[in-house]
């Protein structure tokens, strides 16, 4: 069971890594809009969307 001594700190480090990645993605705006991108991928008319955005108040 000596392997535990390696594995347990490793698991703690992995959790820290996952936490850091998640923290980054949250602050990067990945979770800000969970519905929009699903629709956006269907609308391939990028030009129209850009003009929509610029005319928004």
């Amino acid at each position, binding site marked *: *069971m000596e392997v*535990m*001594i390696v594995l*347990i*700190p490793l*698991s*703690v480090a992995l*959790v820290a890594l*996952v*936490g850091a990645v*998640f*923290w980054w993605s*949250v*602050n990067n705006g990945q*979770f*800000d809009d969970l519905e929009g991108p699903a629709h956006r991928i269907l609308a391939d008319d990028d030009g129209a969307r850009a003009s929509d955005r610029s*005319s928004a*108040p």
Partner: protein
Amino acid sequence: MASIVVADGHEAAATAPAQRCFHCGDAVPAPSRWQWQVGDAARHFCCGGCLAISQTIDAAGLAAYYGRRTGAGATPPAIDEERDWGGSDADALRARFARRDADELEASLLIDGMSCGACVWLLESWLSRQPGVAHASVNFATRRARVRWRTSEGSLARLLASVRAIGYAAHPYDPARRESMARRERRASLSRTAVALLAMMQVMMFAVPTYVASDDVAPAQQALFDWASLVLTMPVLVYSAAPLWRGALRDLAMRRLGMDVPIVLGLAAAFGASAWSTLGGGGPVYYDSVTMFVALLLVARHAELVARHRAGEAIERVARARPAIAERLVDWPRTSVGESVEAASLVPGDRVLVRPGAGVPADGVVVEGRSHVEEAVLTGESRPRAAGVGDAVLEGAINREGALVVRVDAAGDATRLAGVVRLVEAAAAERPRVARVADRIAHAFVGALLLLAIVVGAYWHAVEPSLALPIVFALLVVSCPCALSLATPATFAAAAGALSRMQVVAARPDALETLARVSDVVFDKTGTLTQGRLRLVATHAPAVDVAAALARAAALEAFSEHPLARALRDCAPDAATTAARVIVHTGQGIEGEVGGTPYRIGSLPFVEALAGPMGAVLAARLASIPPQATVVALGSVAGVEALFVLDDAERETAGEAIARLHALGVRTHILSGDSARAVAAWSQRLGAGEARGGCSPSDKRQAIADLQAHGAVVAMIGDGVNDAPGLAQAQVSVSLGSAAPLAQWTADIVVLSDDLSRLPLAIAQARRTLSIVRQNLGWAFAYNAVAIPAAALGLVTPLLAAAGMSLSSLAVVLNALRAGRAVRRP
């Protein structure tokens, strides 16, 4: 993103060195009076024009322009500062935030750092104690405080400072900033929850071996598990649980007991004992309970946060429609030179230019140009409406195509949109009675719980010292006042959001509660069930084509502005038919040639004078026309051709609304000043329960009082001044968006879209909201009644307590979210 800094003259003088205008690069005259937060620094401006431009750029999210640009911004059109802004600089800016009421000012402040319903109470009490403050109310859903203060004693700057002094940040309300604040809050909440969930997962894994096979775990391994758990629990306690700590510390600093206090006490005790054990003191560890408790609790709070934001957004949408900047035409119509001014500083009589795509900055009348305007925010109708010279346009309408010049009739606080915004804000700023009572009970509940914990702890310490700590921990953690403190306000916030999405505003928070109990709805007729204007209801033309007759009528009526003529024109199938040699006989009708044939349209005698007596078929039809309708005849030398029957048009949804109200078990009544016969005819047509005609305003009031005497809870829906006594007598008064402002001001509920079928929907929504609140309170009572005695007797392990409490609060919050879903059919 950005906030305005309203600089008091002397303050700015002390802090502003000589500098260049952030926008145009001109020298800023000292003292600097124009400041605007762009990015992370307060910028100074040379004049109001530059400031306004910069605000617009910033509000559009384009502040990066200032980082990327290589030259100075365009210099705004020359403005005589002293004339336009001099002496009233603070007023013009403040107009966006503060509303003048005699010698009092009122402002909406955005509050940063509110974590629970209890903060509302704290902020309200604190603000009310500030010098000069006459009234303060805080809305948890939108994070806004409405403060009214006497200008002689208080200032906005001092109020902001005072809010900061108790650990919150306050900003004068600004939509762009609000949005970024909401995003920050959501991201932080998500990160905290995720960290807690990850840690919980891992700590559980270390805990399981101890639970299933504690004999097989070697002491060295156990120590390893404990240390790993300790490391993983630390961030949960310090980072994830930070809002809980802050909430509890704030409560304690104010010497009161919020729902976070027992939670934090339990967490601290459990973690302290566990850490002591791990460091060598010996004894059990509770890392699994601590992390799971925090994680599940944060999931529940995150759900509540999302619901609150969604409700807040729906409410914000109305307020956000107000354009901030207007383009005033200084010398119209001689020149079309424009200057940018704060929309709030417009005065009636000003001419403003509304460019395509821009919002109309004030209520007014079009004096030049032709376009389509979209008034979705006011009416819910997204189909654009044609607007030409002479047509009225409302603030907040979006101009679609052509540039319009609008003469301002009402601006600033006097516009219809401003009235709606105020209603919405006032409604959102107060909490319904149920929520206030629930919060008070929660405080008492927590106090009693802490006392019980001390007693139980002392008892077990005497009987079995090793059990005292886990039992006290379980007791502190297992109790769940969430249905009171967290779920009840969340339910009402969610319901308000759902209502405002269907264009219904509950102007008084208690209205929702009363609306749920409504047993009788009283309608006014004219202007409420009917549209209050004439419409073509039938055409009798037995000998000719109806459409052709209508086209001829419309061609002749094109020369008249009489309401009857308008109604006929509105129904005409085409504009191709034209009339020539038209003579208007005032009070009788119109004479002219259509297709070469002389025609007359108007009163029957006037037409018969040309056409001769009408035929037997038409005469029989005439006899069947109801007496309140107006008849317009059309005839040529060949004889009377058609009879047009015009009547007050019913609102399209009136019949549907009444049917749905009946389906909800609500009785309907019509009280009208009209003749009894006409009212009875309308009542029958719409299927209303009871109808009374010939009512004076005081008769209406008396009729409602009689209903109430028999135990009815009455909602009255009316539009005019003559309904005011009735509206005041009814428990719930409802008005339509198009009603007279007076009726709106006194109404408890305003249906902005003028769609009567929203009323039964609102009643159904209110009933569901109340039933959800009741379900939650019932659940909380049952849960606590079982869990607290069980925990006190030592039957609940800390892990079970943590799971029970956090799942219970998750359940009530998720249940509360159901109030935010719109009801489709009552």
